[in-house]
């Protein structure tokens, strides 16, 4: 599988996905 960080768009999309994942993690840690 190709490393998504090799492409600029792969990097940006990975960052957006990570933002969503961490957002839900933060919500659950805050009991929201």
């Amino acid at each position, binding site marked *: 599988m190709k490393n998504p960080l090799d492409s600029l768009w792969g990097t940006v999309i990975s*960052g957006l996905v*990570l933002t969503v994942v*961490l957002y839900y993690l933060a919500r659950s840690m805050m009991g929201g």
Partner: protein
Amino acid sequence: MTWDFVHYGLGRWLHILSGVMWIGLLYYFNFVQVDALKKAAADTPPTGAGITKHVAPLALFYFRWAAVATWVMGAFLLGDKFAQAFLFREQAYVPIGIGAWLGTIMLFNVWVLIWPNQKKILGMKPASDEEKAKARRVAFLASRANTMLSIPMIFFMASSAVFHRPLFGG
């Protein structure tokens, strides 16, 4: 001038100023320089020498020290809530704690993975062609990882203020 003004006014201002310089230069490297140098290397004769000799070292200088200034001013802003944020001890400090951890990982990448390898790539430190090729890959991936991490990092920095707390169901 009150302590609160110095702490939350000047402190936040300097944190954002240095953060703009750090992340601005990170985006310059990732969105502009990598692609420009690839195209310059394909020219006959190659035309990227000026960038690697004059632009990259100066950009890296401001980049790595702005990273330090951003982290230090962030720690100053957290003040006595530093441990609460980093250890997620208080629910209200979870968003800024996540942002602070992302910023800390990024600072580590700058000083431990990007800068030592860039010194080899730019010829500031002696290295064989094989070592340079390896250094180029490590520095590239660390820089790309920081670009990826900067996206949630800025989200958590921007959304951690009290008035954004309902965003997290609080």
